[in-house]
């Protein structure tokens, strides 16, 4: 039933996008024909409706365009069109020195940026065969866990807000703000921390920081308990999240899920237990595993993992000893300022590191850590120079986003919202 109204009309909902492969414009298609047994029983002829959940949409997940084909209120097919936040991370990183890559990695998963920093640092240290001092390892673990808590709090808050529970959002943001204040004292920035360096971390904790952080974490625990009480046994929340967005264990593995979403589907795989890195073999924590693989399970995973992270942090504060925070090798770490200003070798080492970058030996390595959302992998190729030759990022949210059409097939349109929330797609890392 193509009419003249479509002539000259740009029927792509988003000009300039590669399109979601969506079906042609509604006016150009004939309505569905169904056989009619008797006139009284004849169903009303219906057409499928295509709804565009555009790239600028209120759920603050970054920019993803979803073209949803609806039959009434049920989603028949959903197609995704991404790339609206592609910022050229890989290409930018090929043109800066190894240390200058850290701010770019910050902005990948911007709610838990220290984990990106640490992941990248571990990849380069694997290639350079560097071993990091003890205190640096503990600091990396502690700050990673703090940012894991921030990530989970953001997800719980956003999920609550989008299902109508505005208060939960405010409580989670309050808790996140407290932790960001502590991290601002440590790293210099609330959000994009730029904390890890190749060979260690950037700076040591200020005086009294650990005590303040302990108090902030106590307050976080209180807020988490309140949020838990508000949401977990909440009738509306449970109605909307139980049974929606189900993914079976086999499907989850086949689709490439890792992290909390995989564990919610029943597969107990956590990189911190399977291949421990840094000091995760010296802390004791449980790995929660879900059973249903639906949105409620994914939400519960986040709550439980936050509690486990709080437990890990208590052990970190007890076990952390004073010491060096970066390797003493001036080929990788900047010399301390008295040496830079006082000795020729210090000046030369400083100059070479800043101007040419760290000379990482040639080769390639893939290193993986357990970020808040799953396996965060960095595939690093070096040609022996001061700049990366290739820096590939394995975003934890990538397979979950790719599997969204699978998760929402046959579901109601309103189930799309908690499903999209619970997979924790962060635009910065998925679209690099």
């Amino acid at each position, binding site marked *: 039933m193509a009419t003249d109204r479509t002539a000259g009309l740009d029927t792509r909902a988003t000009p300039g996008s590669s399109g979601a492969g969506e079906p042609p414009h509604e006016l150009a298609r004939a309505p569905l024909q169904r056989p009619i047994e008797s006139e009284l029983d004849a169903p009303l002829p219906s057409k499928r409706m295509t709804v565009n959940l555009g790239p600028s949409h209120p759920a603050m997940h970054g920019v993803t365009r979803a073209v949803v084909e609806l039959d009434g209120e049920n989603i028949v097919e959903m197609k995704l069109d991404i790339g609206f936040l592609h910022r050229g991370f890989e*290409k930018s990183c090929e043109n800066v020195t190894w240390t200058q890559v850290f701010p770019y990695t910050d902005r990948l998963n911007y709610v838990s940026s220290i984990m990106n920093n640490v992941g990248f640092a571990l990849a380069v240290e694997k290639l350079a065969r560097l071993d990091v001092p003890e205190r640096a390892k503990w600091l990396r673990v502690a700050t990673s866990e703090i940012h894991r808590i921030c990530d989970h709090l953001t997800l719980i808050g956003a999920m609550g807000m989008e299902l109508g529970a505005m208060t939960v959002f405010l409580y989670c943001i309050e808790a996140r703000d407290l932790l960001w204040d502590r991290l601002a004292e440590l790293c210099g920035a609330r959000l994009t921390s730029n904390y890890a360096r190749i060979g260690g971390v950037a700076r040591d904790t200020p005086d009294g920081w650990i005590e303040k952080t302990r108090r902030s974490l106590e307050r976080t625990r209180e807020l988490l308990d309140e949020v838990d009480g508000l949401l977990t046994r909440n009738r509306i929340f449970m109605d909307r999240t139980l049974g929606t967005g189900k993914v079976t264990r086999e499907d989850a593995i086949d689709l490439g899920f890792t992290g909390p979403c995989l564990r919610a589907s029943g597969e107990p795989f956590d990189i911190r237990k399977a*291949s421990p890195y840094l000091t995760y073999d010296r802390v004791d924590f449980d790995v929660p595993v879900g059973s249903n693989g639906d949105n409620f399970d994914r939400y519960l995973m986040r709550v439980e993992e936050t509690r486990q992270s709080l437990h890990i942090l208590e052990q970190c504060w007890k076990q952390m000893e004073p010491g060096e925070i970066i390797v003493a090798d001036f080929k990788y770490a900047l010399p301390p300022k008295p040496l830079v200003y006082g000795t020729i070798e210090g000046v030369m080492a400083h100059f070479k590191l800043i101007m040419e970058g760290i000379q990482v030996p040639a080769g*390639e390595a893939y290193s993986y850590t357990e970020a808040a959302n799953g396996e965060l992998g960095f595939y690093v190729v070096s040609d022996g120079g001061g700049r990366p030759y290739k820096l590939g990022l394995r975003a934890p949210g990538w397979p979950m986003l790719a599997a969204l059409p699978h998760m929402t097939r046959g579901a109601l349109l309103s189930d799309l919202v908690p499903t999209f929330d619970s997979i924790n797609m962060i635009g910065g890392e998925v679209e*690099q």
Partner: protein
Amino acid sequence: MSKAVIDALVGRFPDAVYEPYVGVGGDDCAFVRKERIEEVCRHLKTEPAMRFDLAPYITAVDYLGQDPRFEVVYNLLSIPNNARVRLRVKVPEGDAVVPSVSSVWRGADWFERYCFDMYGIRFTGHPDMRRLLMYDEFVGHPLRKDYPLRGRQPLVVEREVRDIYRGPGPATRD
């Protein structure tokens, strides 16, 4: 454990899998011939002793100046055996077509679309071989080494704005 996997692979596919090596940090890697990659991956997934059921990361690298120019890298994980393996497939520039492994692991399909979008390597047997992140009107493949860093292709007519000083070096560096 992964070393045993590589050795078994070399034994089973002596003509397809060549040059196994142990990379830095103990990664077990091997090169695989381009035409046989799907067969090798299917064997890795279905063989009871191996069971590489998850493909966490598939990417491509552009070694400009070398021949073959591209390389597609498959990082694989076996959850039951907690083993990882890396397969590298050399792809020449003139014949940048590789069999797709999206029928082996469904999660591989977006990775292959990314490789096509950024490097121009096509995958046969892929259900939906289209660009993923860049827009249709974009000409070229950005992550290739000969694509300029600042090669912007704007979609809208940009307003006249006085440009700020961006520092030394040509505007289209790299």
